[in-house]
């Protein structure tokens, strides 16, 4: 219901008031509104708006965690960040992780949801198996997968040996450590996307399937001609949420690598953390934060533009 409609029903349903009283009423309503808003707005200003502004200011200073510095240095932090190979490396790692994780996290989630939606027995068990890992804390999944990927006695290498393949030093090898993190992440978070797809599938009215059935369309035919075309909007939602979530990689990569700063797994958030809390350079860390923020905004705008183009084509 739009505001206009709400206002219309409100004035229509309330008893008519004389114009003079209306101003007082409005004033009173505004006062109540601000009382309702106050707690949230206070927290919003303190813990969101102020840090954004303050962080922006900090990014132009050489403030350190130890309290030293704090003088205004203009754009030197940004200049340094844009010329910092480690920063670009961290951004590239984050982009690569996003690419590698998003594809399976969307595609496999869709397959899972399609299979569960066929109504086969054991619904609660399927849901539990696919969604349960999502409920685990990052530290827990990191510990489980570090154990599985243990190079000498881990289950992953035991499996490889048992089928006659060479064991891999998953997390210790620069060529495979990001892949190992992707595997753990897909296992961990796919449940969320799976549930979104499942909800969308269950919103497709069953009479559409019944009609197709009468026309003699088989199950597979129904999936391709009824189900998948209607999942377009859902896929856009899932994809958008997933890309934004993957870009914020930190927890599991940091933990699975035991907190070390490796050139192949360091995410941009890890670099922000390291610059600020390991290197004590708050100003520089704030500047990298804003570079990352800009990346997120650009990705968001790109998605909006692509979406609009697709809409225009239809």
């Amino acid at each position, binding site marked *: 219901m739009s505001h206009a409609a709400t206002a219309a029903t409100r004035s229509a349903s309330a008893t008519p008031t004389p114009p003079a009283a209306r101003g007082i009423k409005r004033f009173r309503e505004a006062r109540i509104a601000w009382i309702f808003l106050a707690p949230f707005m206070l927290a919003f200003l303190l813990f969101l708006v102020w840090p954004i502004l303050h962080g922006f200011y900090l990014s132009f200073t050489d403030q350190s965690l130890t309290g030293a510095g704090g003088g205004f240095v203009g754009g030197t932090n940004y200049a340094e960040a844009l010329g910092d190979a480690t920063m670009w490396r961290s951004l590239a790692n984050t982009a690569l992780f996003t690419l590698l994780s998003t594809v399976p996290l969307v595609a496999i989630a869709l397959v899972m949801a399609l299979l569960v939606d066929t109504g086969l027995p054991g619904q609660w068990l399927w849901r539990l*198996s696919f969604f349960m890992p999502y409920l685990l804390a990052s530290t827990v999944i990191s510990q489980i997968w570090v154990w*599985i990927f243990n190079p000498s006695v881990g289950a992953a290498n035991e499996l490889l040996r048992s089928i006659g393949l060479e064991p891999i030093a998953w997390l210790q090898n620069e060529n495979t450590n990001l892949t190992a993190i992707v595997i753990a992440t897909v296992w961990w978070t796919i449940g969320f996307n799976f549930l979104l797809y499942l909800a969308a599938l269950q*919103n497709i009215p069953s009479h559409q399937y019944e009609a197709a059935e009468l026309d003699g369309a088989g199950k597979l035919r129904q999936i391709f001609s009824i189900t998948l075309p209607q999942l377009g909007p859902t896929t856009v939602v899932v994809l958008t949420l997933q890309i934004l979530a993957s870009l914020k990689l930190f927890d599991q990569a940091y933990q699975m690598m035991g907190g070390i700063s490796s050139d192949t797994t360091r995410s941009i958030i890890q670099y922000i953390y390291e610059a600020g809390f390991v290197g004590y350079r708050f100003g520089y860390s704030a500047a990298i934060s804003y570079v990352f923020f800009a990346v997120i905004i650009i990705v968001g705008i790109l998605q909006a533009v692509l979406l609009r183009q697709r809409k225009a084509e239809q």
Partner: protein
Amino acid sequence: MSTSIETPQPVSIDGGAARPVTGHRVVRTSRMAGKKRFSGLRLAAFVALAVMALGWLLPFLWAVATAFKTETDAASGGLNWIGASGITTQAFESILSQGNIWVWAFNSLWTSVAITVITVFISAFAAYAFSRLDFRGRRWLFVVVLASIVIPPQVLIIPLFYQMLAFNLVDTHWGLILPQVVMPAMVFILKKFFDAVPIELEDAARVDGASRFRIFWSVVMPLSRPILGAVSIFVFINAWNNFLWPFIVINDTLLMTLPVGLQTVISAYGVQYAQIMAQAVLASLPLIVVFLLFQRQIVKGVATTGFGGQ
């Protein structure tokens, strides 16, 4: 979903749009119910599903199996589910007697509950004002709150830490809780829900002379139980599993939450795999139990907040 992206409906896993007014469940009969056709296709689907589910359960089951081994058996590798010395609860006993896991679990529980209660309350009040009350600048303010959804909280760790230093809240639970109570997306979801509550229900109460607060508290809130539950569950899971901010703001071992506390013992235990797995399994139990108890609400909550967060 048949709705367009601009106006996502709150969806319910039971099928159909979630109706704000009624709490009754739509019982969904499965699409195949009543058909005893075991076609080859169904069998193939079942096998595929079973294989996938097994694949998804195995890593956790392997962790459980490891936790019940002796350290020697765990470190000897191999793919056997039961160690050579049989099943033992040694790992669990040593974890539980070392004591910290209880403290961390308690810290996690109370901070997560505090974050959930505060977030849901302040968001609901604000959402109601945006939805139903008339004040100057309402539109504009709502757009600002809406726009802030895109800000990744991780970007704010430096200025937030600075702020906590100024407030003297570093290494306190309030320093951990307060920055996490601002969730603009929840205000958006709740406002959308309040918009859909029929105004006539409130008008009836107004004619009886009830105050705005009264109406909100005794008419609107009870009607909103399903959505409040969904939002609470979502906020709680997020708070319970949050790592980066608690990791930064808490240094005292006795104030740590479970995810952060577990991180510290990885290095401390070295190669005691059985104990690390026992700890991981213990730490996962609370949320797995919660999921088993509230499966329907959690599934619905994820779907609602997931689509609503758009």
